[in-house]
């Protein structure tokens, strides 16, 4: 059993390396700006969803308020850069650190809540933060922050002429989020989380430090999501509260994992690769008139997949490989 698991993990790592290499080569053949933009967003959501999955999937604490950490990352980077001239790279680390600390501070009271009480608490906390930022004049209030253009460079992490550097950063971020998850899966944390998710009371009685393991998951998850937020701020170079901290981000982060397979290594990647291009394409082809067809397609897809494949799209793959193994 153990060797089988080790084999699977090695295979996962090889597959991931191949996919990353292929993804890295794609821009050599695709020069279309619109397609590049969709690829950047797809990679970003894969990274975000992978990070969300650590807390909500592996540890089972369903958060619908992760927009808070995304927004914190974006705002920390943008404010440090525009007000104090701090380079975005430091802003990114600062945003990640602040988010991790806040996630633990909020986790302290919240992790005592169960089920729907917890989910609603996460929504409500993100909503309070959104309202506060909307009313915080120093941070641009509802108007937001325009990140001034200071010339293209990796040092300032700003690129106006080509989106390619953003693509490679997003790819790196997605790879890091995947690797962190891969590594955590086989660490003691990974086992603790699964125990906490399946049965917190039993886990507690077997000596799993339930509370601390939830706090750990929250910190890692928030840190990575905040880095994604910092990246997004640089990528779009203009942020306002609704566009980085709105509830839709919490949802958009959760959906790839939910559709792909929550609490699985490949679910978020698979979900993002299908969902994000589909959303962007329906939006530009049928949704342009503001008639809501994109919403109908999107919503129907969510209903259909969550009802037909409660374990997500990855379950189709494991069904197929299961059949192969049974035939062997």
């Amino acid at each position: 059993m153990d060797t089988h698991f080790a084999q699977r993990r090695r295979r996962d790592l090889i597959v991931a390396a191949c996919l990353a290499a292929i993804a890295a080569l794609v821009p050599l053949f695709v020069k279309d700006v619109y397609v590049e933009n969709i690829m950047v967003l797809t990679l970003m959501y894969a990274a975000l969803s992978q990070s969300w999955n650590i807390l909500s999937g592996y540890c089972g604490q369903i958060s619908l308020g992760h927009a808070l950490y995304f927004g914190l990352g974006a705002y920390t980077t943008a404010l440090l850069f525009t007000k104090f001239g701090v380079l975005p790279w430091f802003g990114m680390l600062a945003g990640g650190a602040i988010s991790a600390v806040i996630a633990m501070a909020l986790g302290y009271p919240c992790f005592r809540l169960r089920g729907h009480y917890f989910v609603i608490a996460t929504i409500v906390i993100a909503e309070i933060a959104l309202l506060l930022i909307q009313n915080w004049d120093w941070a641009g209030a509802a108007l937001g922050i325009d990140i001034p253009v200071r010339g293209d460079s990796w040092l300032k992490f700003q690129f106006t002429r080509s989106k390619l550097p953003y693509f490679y950063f997003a790819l790196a971020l997605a790879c890091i989020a995947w690797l962190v998850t891969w590594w955590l899966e086989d660490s003691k944390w990974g086992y603790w989380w699964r125990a906490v998710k399946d049965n917190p009371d039993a886990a507690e009685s077997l000596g799993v430090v339930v509370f601390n393991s939830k706090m750990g998951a929250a910190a890692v998850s928030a840190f990575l999501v905040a880095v994604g937020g910092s990246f997004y701020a640089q990528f779009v170079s203009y942020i306002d509260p609704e566009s980085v901290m709105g509830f839709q981000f919490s949802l958009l982060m959760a959906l790839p994992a939910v559709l792909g397979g929550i609490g699985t290594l490949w679910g978020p990647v698979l979900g993002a690769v299908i969902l994000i291009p589909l959303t962007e394409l329906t939006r530009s082809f049928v949704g342009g008139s503001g008639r809501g067809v994109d919403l109908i397609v999107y919503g129907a897809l969510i209903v259909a997949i969550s009802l037909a494949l409660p374990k997500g799209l990855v379950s189709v793959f494991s069904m197929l490989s299961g059949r192969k193994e049974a035939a062997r």
Partner: protein
Amino acid sequence: MTAETIIQSLASGLLMGLLYGLIAAGLALIFGLMDVVNFAHGEFLMIAMYVTFFLFAFFAIDPLLAAPLVAAALFVFGAVVYLLVVRFAMRAKANAGMVQIFSTFGLAIVMRGLAQFFFTPDYRSVTNSWVGGKTISIGGIYLPEPQLIGAMLSIAAFVALYFFINRTDFGRALEATREDAGAVALVGIDKNRVFALGWGLGAALVGLAGAIMAIFFYIYPDVGASFALIAYVTVALGGFGSVFGAFAGGIIVGLVEATTALILPPSLKSVGIYAVYLLVVFIRPRGLFGSM
């Protein structure tokens, strides 16, 4: 700030709170019955408001007269949603909680899209209804008539609900099913029928609220979102599943909102509601009236 302004805003807060209670009643009923949070609840409210609007625009039926019709329409709608979507979500063997959350969330997004498609994103309003825009003065305190009627309707609906749950066969079947869905099957009660009727009843309650809301609130495809979160907080404050907890929760939410608006800028008035929610669940993790 004079004593008069305080009383004035607390009075309007109380009226609004009773209406919040009515909006949340259906959510609490459905949760209590089958442990499902309907994340499309706000969109049920939106549909009810549009039905009211079209009855008024095409048939000149005043929202007050339309309220029973809207409730009936929503009853059918709620039962159909249960039979077409939620029934299948209940069967999920893996990730059950997740499936319920996201299937109703997906439904909410579809409903918003359909509303945009058929009704356009334009803001609509019911103009020149019987009580729209009118106020009544009681002892020097001005109360808006639509909210006052909404508050009275809310109290009436909760009283009716009390008798319905405690005095009718269906009400007893509802209570029995919520206590032990497996056992009721043994005495010949069809669980699915009870659940479908429960969803119908829950939707009918939000239908009543929607008919009143349409009198004094703009109607647009996203209107449900702003009230949905308040409804979740209301239900959770009262303790999930306790229908009468939702009544108390609504009053608290209305009063807190009014008080916050007195102290903080109006754009922050929801912060008070959310803060009180957090405070309550941190102290009592199962809400005010939920069983521990």
